[in-house]
């Protein structure tokens, strides 16, 4: 097991944003986390990345307890992440941005530069472009490139593909596939169902801090609890439509 999150809970005062969620991730999987706004998936995600300290529960990565570890320790252990709002280092070039991540495994400048160049090429970015001049798609891509430069075993993508045009989305999905094929396990939080249905093999659905359903994309979209979470009690129509057969 690569990642084991056991009964993870997080409260803010009397409000439980995550009320005991479990997640087991095997090496080589792509797992999607979905749920309506405020369902607790981002808080759970931040607990996995070390950004938020869980109130209860345990998080084991590769058998090592990372529950109370810092984000730096998560990165060192092999967990990379992107941010919903890309935190680009604006005064730095694309290559320099990626080098910051590459320095984690390659302390010497030339080695880090070499590694960063490989990643920039893989992600289709221009190395000399300044971070400031990038648009939303470029910033999202740079976020992924930077995380990849840390050479993670597990990549946590937090709405990394939101705000993209359909053609940009197709490119981004192809990029995520290439990353997965290179041996990186992926957990993805995403609102765009096309992304989840196309990429994920297993989906967890969050609602009010709980995991209300899990299974293959086809299973969860027909789950009564999922329909209720998205459309409210009494709804009968499936809210999520799987893509036509053959697109997987």
């Amino acid at each position, binding site marked *: 097991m690569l990642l084991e999150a056991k009964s993870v809970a997080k409260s803010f005062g009397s409000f439980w944003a995550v009320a005991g969620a479990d997640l087991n991730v095997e090496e080589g999987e792509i797992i999607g986390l979905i749920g309506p706004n405020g369902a607790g998936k981002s808080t759970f995600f931040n607990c996995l990345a070390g950004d938020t300290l869980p109130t209860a529960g345990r998080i084991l990565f590769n058998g090592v307890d990372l529950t109370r570890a810092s984000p*730096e320790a998560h990165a060192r252990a092999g967990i990379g992440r992107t941010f919903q709002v890309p935190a680009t280092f604006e005064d730095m070039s694309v290559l320099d941005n990626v080098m910051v991540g590459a320095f984690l495994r390659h302390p010497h400048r030339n080695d880090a530069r070499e590694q960063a160049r490989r990643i920039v090429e893989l992600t289709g970015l221009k190395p000399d472009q300044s971070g400031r001049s990038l648009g939303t798609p470029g910033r999202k891509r740079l976020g992924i490139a930077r995380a990849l430069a840390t050479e993670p075993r597990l990549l946590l993508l937090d709405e990394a593909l939101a705000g993209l045009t359909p053609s940009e989305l197709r490119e981004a999905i192809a990029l995520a596939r290439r990353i997965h094929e290179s041996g990186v396990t992926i957990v993805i939080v995403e609102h765009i169902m096309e992304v989840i249905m196309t990429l994920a093999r297993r989906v967890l659905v969050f609602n009010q801090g709980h995991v209300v359903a899990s299974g293959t994309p086809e299973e969860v979209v027909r789950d009564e609890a999922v329909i209720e979470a998205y459309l409210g009690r009494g709804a009968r129509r499936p809210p999520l439509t799987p893509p036509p057969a053959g697109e997987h």
Partner: protein
Amino acid sequence: MIKIAPKGAGLCLLAAALLLFPFLFPDPFYQDIGVAFLLAAISASAWNIVGGYAGQVSVGHAMFFGLGAYAPLLFYTLFGWPPLAAIPVGILLSVALAVLIGLPTFRLSGHYFSMATIAVAELIRIFFGTWALVGGAIGLQGPAVARGWWDLTFRGDLAYYYIFLAVLGLLLFVTYEVGRRRFGFYLRAIKASERAARSLGVPVRLTKLKALALSAAFTSAAGSLYAVKTGFIDPDSGFGILVSVQMVIVAALGGAGTLFGPLVGALILVPLQSAANTWFGGGGSGLTFIIYGGIIVLIARFEPGGLLDLWRRLVPRLRRRAHAA
């Protein structure tokens, strides 16, 4: 047609101008301004490592400057040490103080670090003003007559000019090397987004602490140079808030977080101060505060990136015009 000099040529020109300045302007008045310029450039460049590159704005760097300034004169007064021998003591004390302040404050986010630096600097100033061992409010004096070159007590400004220039050269070289290495990349990442830097494995607190320690070491050296040059130190000239503010203003005016920004800032501000003192005499001393205040407002409103940033934006425009002509 306008020609923009390439980077290397500009650097050679700057080095030549700094090296030849005392011969081009042999008048003691100008040499004094030259030494003041170098001291301001060293202090602001030292502040720049933590304030500019790492974005951790210290408004109490006078604490390191003051410790560096007191150390040589205190050890001379107590044990007759040559000032040169006590400069490393000042540096060590400053680095220790930097770690002491950085350890708790870098755990916090926001402006806590800035507030803590102001508070500590003021506390030290008040404490030194009442501590008899360091001369209280009167302060300390250095050797009146040199016992040898190691007392660093020279008649004219020429020797000081070249000593200060050598220290500035060393500091700029260290800063340049820092900028090229992992440490420098980490500093810039921390300045842009601590959260993102953390997610990439950057040890944020340790990196900030190292930057503060390095910055404190050079600021302390600047204080020592000031003390050996003037041969006198008191709490206000060592630990005064104006000493700290000047470092911030000089760096911000030229361009905080750039290698040559503090030099540009010093080049403008030091002659301006000197001119104000000349024009208004003793009555112009309060004018410094007004000038500083005005500069803060102008930088914050129009050029947060400093003058070097403005220059960088203007160069492409000038190039385009030059090509069009």
